[in-house]
């Protein structure tokens, strides 16, 4: 049964790596958000696997997954808000053109 846990953890690790690559390499804000979503998906796979195979009697594990899902929705809401504001102001959501945000 531990094999399933390892398979799930490996999947989570690879999804996190792909998401990190996307978040760092993309120039468009929406694509960067997609990378962050993949990283959070990797974290959720790990959380569910830990709950199922290590502590199925403690429901705080499932609660934690709900919190991560909320964070995903928050990231989308705030990201799209920023994208719309940026598009209105500059006509583009390319992050390479966002040097004016530098403090």
């Amino acid at each position: 049964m531990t094999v399933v846990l390892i398979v799930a953890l490996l999947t989570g690790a690879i999804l996190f790596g792909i998401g990190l690559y996307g978040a760092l390499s993309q120039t468009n804000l929406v694509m960067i958000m997609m990378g962050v979503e993949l990283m959070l998906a990797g974290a959720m796979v790990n959380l569910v696997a830990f709950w199922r195979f290590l502590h199925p009697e403690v429901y705080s594990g499932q609660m934690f997954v709900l919190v991560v899902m909320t964070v995903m929705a928050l990231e989308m809401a705030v990201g799209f808000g920023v994208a719309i504001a940026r598009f209105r102001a500059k006509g583009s959501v390319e992050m390479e053109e966002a040097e004016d945000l530098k403090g």
Partner: protein
Amino acid sequence: MYAQAFFVAVFGLAAIGFGVVVFRTSSMVRSALALLFSQTAVGCMFLAMQTEFLGVLQIMMMATEMSIMAIFMVMFMMDPGGLGGMDMSHQKRFSIGAGVSAAIVAIAVALLSDWGPAAEQVPDAEAQTRALGVELLGRSMMIFETAGITILTAMIAATAVAIPVKNLAGKDDKEASE
């Protein structure tokens, strides 16, 4: 047991495969759909791991979220159809290095840690949903409520950021001159 390992592996491979496609295709709609399929495969992994409530929730949430994302992609991308063959990436070598390093470290932790004996049995779907409900409305109620208030605040903040700014100072000047 073997069936569970098989299905978790198959859905895991699907999630990884579609995750790679997100950053490989030049069409933005295909990117959003690939992310939708990847997240759905993650939801199916939850189902294969006997976490039915969260699996169904994941699939439902991501179907909505990625549909919205596809619309935003078409609205905001410089080349939504991907017909121009534009390259919208930078610092590729550093990004690949960071992604591979993070994955290798996480894989090493997964393989080298002693996770102890795995639980054989889990409560059935009905008992799980009931226990999660009791957890949400009992011990974890404050966390749950805080998450709800936080998402409401973020939605209001996102709307406030997104609406156009009215130039009130300019309006006053105009009224004064009239």
